[in-house]
């Protein structure tokens, strides 16, 4: 034994570190959160940028455009120039294209290349046959769509990360709202006790009987699909469990001898609450928080899935999954990537919550 001593928190942290599933989950969650916060800046494609030439591109690690996309795209532009591409050769990132037409090619029309998502501005290398035959050099516009693109030609990676920001933010904010209401309500009821407690808990019982999914839907439908309202609605509904847990904790802590001991020392009610009761309710609150975040994220994606949540072009994992589910035939990547992100997050949060519970309450192991 060292003289420094180990607080229960330090003990819990040690136990948590020994739980491999929980630590791995925590690392994964941090990684995911970092990716969602900073990732969109690094991806290079804005989440709402539409690439009309890249609609439903399958996921690929290769730079776009790939070879099989180039020829048809060149053909398309050539036909707009009323010309034919008779020779396309590629040298690294530039194409050398020979265009032939029955009449002189209007060089201003070469801007079509630049307007395409695939190419940069074309440069004329040589002009023959009075401009009926042009050799142009067109640099390729390199783009990476690691997760492919959606039906509107938007980068799914950027969208998934942005959606993650939204889902995580809603999860955290709504949880924060729910936990705050629940902790305060529960602590007040438990500490007051007697008739006040009975009345406050009766109100909770009534609210429990509300068909709450229906209530959330009603709120969201009637008061507009508003980001802030979403998490207020969710938070306002999910605080009931927290209130019950904290009240139960407070009630049982109030009966513990160390609270009686503090009272005989003359410690004030505030002192008892802050030094003896609140620190001891934090364990269950922390555990419940980690389990509530996934619940809220799931609820948000559920509402978004029904088209009641976040609105385009903003997006969330639920929106993306709904979109993916509609396009599942032939375009599985639209479902797979957001679903992987969502379920990984939920999985990790659950494992972390379980790990925390075991760490904070060693009796259970």
């Amino acid at each position, binding site marked *: 034994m060292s003289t420094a001593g180990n607080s229960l928190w330090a003990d819990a942290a040690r136990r948590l570190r020994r739980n491999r599933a929980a630590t791995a989950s925590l690392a994964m969650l941090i990684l995911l959160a970092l990716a969602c916060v900073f990732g969109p800046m690094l991806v290079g494609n804005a989440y709402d940028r539409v690439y009309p030439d890249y609609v439903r591109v399958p996921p690929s690690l290769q730079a776009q455009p790939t070879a099989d996309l180039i020829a048809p795209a060149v053909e398309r532009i050539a036909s707009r120039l009323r010309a034919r591409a008779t020779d396309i050769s590629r040298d690294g990132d530039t194409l050398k294209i020979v265009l032939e037409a029955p009449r002189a090619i209007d060089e201003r029309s070469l801007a079509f290349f630049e307007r395409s998502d695939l190419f940069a501005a074309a440069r004329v290398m040589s002009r023959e046959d009075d401009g009926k035959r042009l050799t142009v050099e067109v640099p390729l516009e390199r783009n990476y769509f690691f997760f492919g693109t959606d039906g509107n030609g938007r980068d799914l990676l950027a969208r998934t990360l942005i959606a993650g920001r939204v889902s995580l933010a809603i999860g955290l904010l709504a949880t924060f709202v729910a936990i705050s209401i629940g902790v305060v309500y529960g602590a007040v009821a438990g500490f007051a006790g007697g008739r006040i407690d009975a009345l406050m808990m009766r109100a909770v019982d009534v609210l429990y009987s*509300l068909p709450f999914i229906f*209530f959330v839907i009603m709120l969201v439908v009637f008061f507009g699909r508003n980001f802030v309202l979403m998490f207020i609605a969710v938070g306002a509904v999910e605080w009931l469990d927290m209130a019950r847990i904290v009240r139960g904790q407070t009630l049982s802590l109030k009966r513990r001898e160390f609270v009686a001991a503090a009272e005989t020392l003359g410690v004030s009610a505030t002192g008892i609450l802050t030094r003896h009761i609140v620190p001891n309710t934090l364990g269950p609150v922390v555990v419940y928080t980690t389990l509530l975040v996934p619940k809220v994220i799931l609820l948000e994606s559920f509402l978004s899935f029904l088209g009641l949540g976040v609105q385009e072009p903003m997006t969330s994992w639920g929106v993306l999954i709904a979109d993916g589910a509609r396009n599942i035939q032939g375009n599985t990547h639209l479902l797979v990537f957001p679903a992987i992100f969502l379920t990984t997050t939920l999985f990790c949060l659950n494992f972390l919550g379980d790990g925390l519970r075991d760490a904070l309450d060693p009796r259970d192991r």
Partner: protein
Amino acid sequence: MLGFVLRRFLSAIPTLFVVITLSFFLMRLAPGGPFDLERPLEAKIMENLQRAYGLDLPLHEQYLRYLGNLLRGDLGPSFFMRDFSVAQILMQGLPVSMALGGGAILLALVLGAGLGAFAAMRQNTGADHAVVGFATAGVTIPNFVVAPVLQIVFGLTLAWLPVGGWNNGALRNVILPVIVLALPQIAVVARMTRAAMIETLRADHIRTLRSLGLGGRHVAEHGLRAALLPVVSYLGPTAAALLTGSVVVETIFGLPGIGRYFVEGALNRDYTLVMGTVVVVAVFVLVFNLIVDILYALLDPRVRYE
């Protein structure tokens, strides 16, 4: 016992009243109305419609009128599906939702409790970890991800089962939605049963059983009975929620249940349909809470009927 049931039943009435009142005013406070179409109606027509449905009256009179009708069992006409009364719509949707929910609840109870007990008796073995893994997956993978995957696999690739539709409740049509509905519940019940049973298996009275040669089957029986207490209190409200329709599952599989009517009603500001659904759901919740109380008292003799 009868007095206990009666008292619980009576105490549910104020709750129901609060639910109805809250939903009524919440809905009316919201902007928009049932007849706000994209092209505004002529003022005259609008006025006639409002009068026909009593929407021109002051709000509190509408409320009292609704309560009065409700007491007579009249849920009113649907604003949006003009040819039907709310009662008719609900009577159509309820059997669908109840069939799905009933199946899911049954699966959840049998498979969930079974898996949970199985895992608890083999704590920290491979079988236990497998059940825990499955249960965590079941809780975390949302049903709107599971549903399309199952549709693709069993509906399209293997073509064993239809992708959706009600088809008068043919078994083939019900299987996938019931499984999707049941999976998360199986997972929750399994986790709960396992945790509660591990706790009970460490209890002194289980050690007593073992010390008397009543191992194996007897330990499992006593452990499971204690472990079912939290499961029962969880399944009560859950059963109410499942029996009154799952919005997602009904939407994905195109089933004409309560959940779908509710969402459509809400989107179309169909006040009476929304209210009717809320009333039905609230009644279900209260009834199932009552059932839980009774079951709990039957399972646990320490609960007194006071």
